[in-house]
């Protein structure tokens, strides 16, 4: 590993919550991610940016093994959570996904009541021992997602009846409810209007103290606003990874600069 490359891996201080080393991802014969190594730290928001199709989502989904659901996807390299290889044979995917939560591009609440949406995770993982405890978890999660005030009187309405931005916050609340350690967000605002986007960004800002957050975004302003660290991908390769302000003001790589200044993409 060259010096430059090494510098990419870990951007700034903080204990690495997740590490990836030399990760390659193939869809069938096609390589979508090439030799990516990155560290994700606690209490930090890491942003993945890059042109469409560069592999941001693919890489993000490696972190909680959601790629397992795509039969042709194949992941090599090493990815650890708290030092344990998440692709190891003895790693339990169900637990892993509870610990590494995920929020998707399009809000995808279950067609159930708001309450049941939030309670879904705690129920399947048995995180609450009784009705009260569950109620508490639900209220707590909704509160943290900043949705409590808006929905507390209609917890039994269907989650799909909410507005897009509310749905996305519901999905975040749902992810929070299982008490994860890492939260992955794949373009969480791209389906939302600016006001809803602002709310989500604010939310990310508020909760980041407790989790390691990774967010994929197309919107460079958003990356600059919410993240402390930014990784720039291009054609499946990690071009640059570093403290967000450095990347945006003083990128080391020409490609990064071109992208950030809108030369292409």
């Amino acid at each position: 590993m060259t010096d430059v490359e090494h510098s990419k891996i870990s951007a700034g201080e903080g204990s690495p919550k997740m590490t990836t080393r030399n990760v390659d991802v193939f869809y069938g014969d096609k390589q979508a991610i090439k030799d990516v190594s990155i560290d994700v730290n606690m209490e930090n928001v890491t942003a993945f940016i890059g042109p469409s199709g560069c592999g941001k989502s693919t890489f993000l989904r490696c972190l909680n093994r959601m790629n397992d659901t795509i039969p042709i996807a194949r992941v090599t390299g090493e990815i650890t959570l708290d030092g344990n290889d998440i692709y190891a044979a003895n790693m339990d995917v169900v637990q892993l996904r509870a610990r590494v939560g995920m929020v998707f591009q399009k809000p995808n609440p279950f067609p159930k009541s708001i309450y049941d949406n939030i309670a879904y995770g705690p129920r399947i993982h048995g995180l609450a021992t009784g009705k009260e405890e569950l109620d508490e978890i639900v209220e707590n999660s909704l509160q943290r997602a900043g949705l409590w005030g808006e929905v507390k009187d209609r917890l039994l309405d269907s989650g799909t009846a909410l507005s897009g931005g509310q749905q996305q916050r519901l999905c975040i609340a749902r992810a929070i409810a299982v008490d994860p350690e890492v939260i992955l967000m794949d373009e969480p605002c791209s389906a939302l209007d600016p006001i809803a986007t602002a709310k989500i960004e604010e939310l990310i800002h508020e909760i980041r103290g407790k989790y390691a957050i990774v967010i994929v975004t197309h919107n460079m302003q958003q990356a600059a606003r919410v993240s402390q660290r930014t990784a720039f991908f291009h054609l499946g390769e990690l071009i640059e990874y570093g403290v967000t302000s450095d990347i945006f003001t003083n990128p080391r790589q020409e490609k990064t600069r071109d992208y950030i200044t809108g030369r292409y993409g």
Partner: protein
Amino acid sequence: MTGSALFFLIIGLGGIAWIFGRAKARRFAVVKSDRSAIHSRPNYHGWYVALWAIAPALVFLTVWNFTSPSLITDAALSSPAAEQLPKDSFARGSILAEARAIANGNQVKAFNPLSQSMVEPYRAATSYYRTIGGIAAALLVFAFGVFAWLRVKPEMRARTKVERVTMMVLLFASLIAIVTTVGIFLSLIFESARFFSMVSPIEFLFGTEWNPKAVAGPRGQSGFGAIPLFWGTVFIGAIIAMIVAIPLGLMSAIYLTQYAHSSFRAWMKPILEVLAGVPTVVYGYFAALTVAPALRDFAVSIGISSASSESALAAGVVMGIMIIPFVSSMADDSIAAVPSAMRDGSLAMGATKSETIKKVLIPAALPGVVGGVLLAVSRAIGETMIVVMAAGLAANMTANPFQSVTTVTTQIVQLLTGDQEFDSPKTLAAFALGLVLFIVTLLLNLIALRVVKKYREAYE
């Protein structure tokens, strides 16, 4: 000229008309290379002329086919040979028919000697009228063909006209569906109305005693209470069959779509589809020959002595098997229609596959599945051969699956095979039952289609 020869003559002449029309159009097509001046391709002019030439002649042919035989018969009868014919109308008619068959070369030898004497007059009359028919048809073709040919001009919109005719043919074809529906409805309504003029609809729909009698005697009509039939139909088709088909169909669909390896799926799906392709008479035979005796023996061995060989269970189970692929393909579609984001969302929460299926996919797909099940029920209650062969004839009202019940379709077959007297309520009862069946399946379908459609829209 026989009807078919005449037909081919007309078609042949139509072909010639086509050539002429086309040739004329071609001439000015070549002359006027300015495209906007000639509207349609020569081919269309050909078709235009040909249609004009053929259509009136074909109408004539149709009419002629109905009228000319009687003209021929009249002519033949006016011959002296006709005087020896017996007066008895059937014998007379039969001799004439035979003579006609021999004259037309459809028969070689006369069975009745008198026929032979009529052959010559027939032959003469036939050839006379055929000549007339042939000439008339040819004249018609010629007259209309020439008329159309004269109208072939560069600016004539032959294509538009030909296409309008084609469009009418298409429209006509699609109207047949309506005609059929109306036909079904009217024939059922008409015969049912006659039935209900003899038997009160209240008694029919709510009576519990089914023992149809043929004669409308002075003792009044009893025994037309169809409730036991409705119960039997529901018991077999909507209860027992569904108890078999829903779990098996649903679980098969789930396994195939969510778990199975693609190559396993590629093999298994067609195999399941074969279940739907086996004719129902085969299922019926299988039920009656193999399943029913086995179930009866089983029931007797566990101490149900009243078990009947034509148990509701045998018919219901086999019908359920038949319905499995139906349910599974409907479930398959419904589950596939659930956006994968739903599945991903659940998996990302750390749910296992089965938890995702049970708690997210199935509830989300439920309307679709329910719609599919309704369609399956409508199929099951309309199914005939399995119940005819394996369900009973006794109109019992029992919930014991080892006893025999009878169904609407079984009784329709029972009432309409063998003797048919269309003035007896017994025969007409079949139509009343058919009407009920028609309405119920129609409603089930309408509801099911609506449910499924709504559900599809919810995720679009």
